[in-house]
């Protein structure tokens, strides 16, 4: 269980230490990619809790969503349409839905556990 958290911390340290400068216009792509990554992450957690978690789906979805979001933003910039707003909207809505589902599942689990404890 500690390995993923270790990975997160190491990644954060690397990100803070790297001294790569990217132009301002690419900062948008980065934020979209993060949003996609978070969305996929919470989707994975929800799937785990619903017992329909598939590692292949999760990993492929993680990277594919990041790349898709970034390329969508790229395309939008070049077309003159703010397509990244579509990505923000879609991922944002899904993020909230996923978190809401996770919250309900947790609540249900917690209430059933406490009931069971009362029974005991």
């Amino acid at each position, binding site marked *: 269980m500690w390995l993923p958290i270790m990975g997160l911390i190491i990644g954060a340290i690397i990100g*803070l230490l790297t001294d790569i400068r990217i132009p301002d216009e690419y900062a948008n792509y980065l934020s979209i990619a*993060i949003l996609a990554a978070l969305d996929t992450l919470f989707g994975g957690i929800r799937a785990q809790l619903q017992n329909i978690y598939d590692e292949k789906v999760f990993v492929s979805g993680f990277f594919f969503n990041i790349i898709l979001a970034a390329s969508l933003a790229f395309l939008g910039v070049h077309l003159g349409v703010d397509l990244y707003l579509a990505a923000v909207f879609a991922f944002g809505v899904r993020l909230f839905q996923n978190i809401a589902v996770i919250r309900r599942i947790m609540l249900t689990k917690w209430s059933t556990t406490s009931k069971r404890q009362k029974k005991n």
Partner: protein
Amino acid sequence: MDSNRVVLSIVFLVLGFMIAFSFRVTKDDGDQGNRLTDRQWEQHISLRNQLIEQEEKNRELQKELNAKQEKVREIETSLSKEAQVFFNMAEDAEKYRMFLGKVKVSGKGVKVTLADGEYDPNEENINNYLVHEQHVFKVINELYISGAAAIAVNGQRIAHNSYILCTGPVITVDGYQHPAPFEITAIGDPEVLSSALNITGGVKDQLVNDQIVFSLEKQSEITMEPLLGN
């Protein structure tokens, strides 16, 4: 399960890297001041307004300065005119002093010498060939009319209130007696003065008719002392 963990940690590594990187980039942007906060914006606006106000004030002051400079220039012009006037006045005063005999005068001029005629035994009246004061008057008046600046008789300056009297064989100028021959010196244009005296039927002819020895001499340098005591 182990491979699951490894893949998951790679995913988290990528996520952490991206979040941290994005955080750093956004922070840098904030540091660069490209993204202004509301307060900074307001500060900018107020500073700009101040600048505009200052510039307007500057422009007004500049206009005022220009107007003042214009005024100064006018005053200077009038001052220079006044200076011109004063200069002319000073010149006039100098000229008048010269006429009044209060200053030393020197310049070109003529010298007229009037001498009594030769003694003539045939002439019973000696007055017919003596120089009288009216002869001197004539010469002096003619010289003044022709533009003489200063005149002296035997070295004594003639002023505006000088008088010449006939007292026997001599004439009295301002109380000083002068015997013949009389040397009348005049400062002025020698050509004009001499031609005025030499005019046909003029002073010279009249004096010569009165048996007076008349001689005229142009001089390049005549100096007259100022009159004393007035």
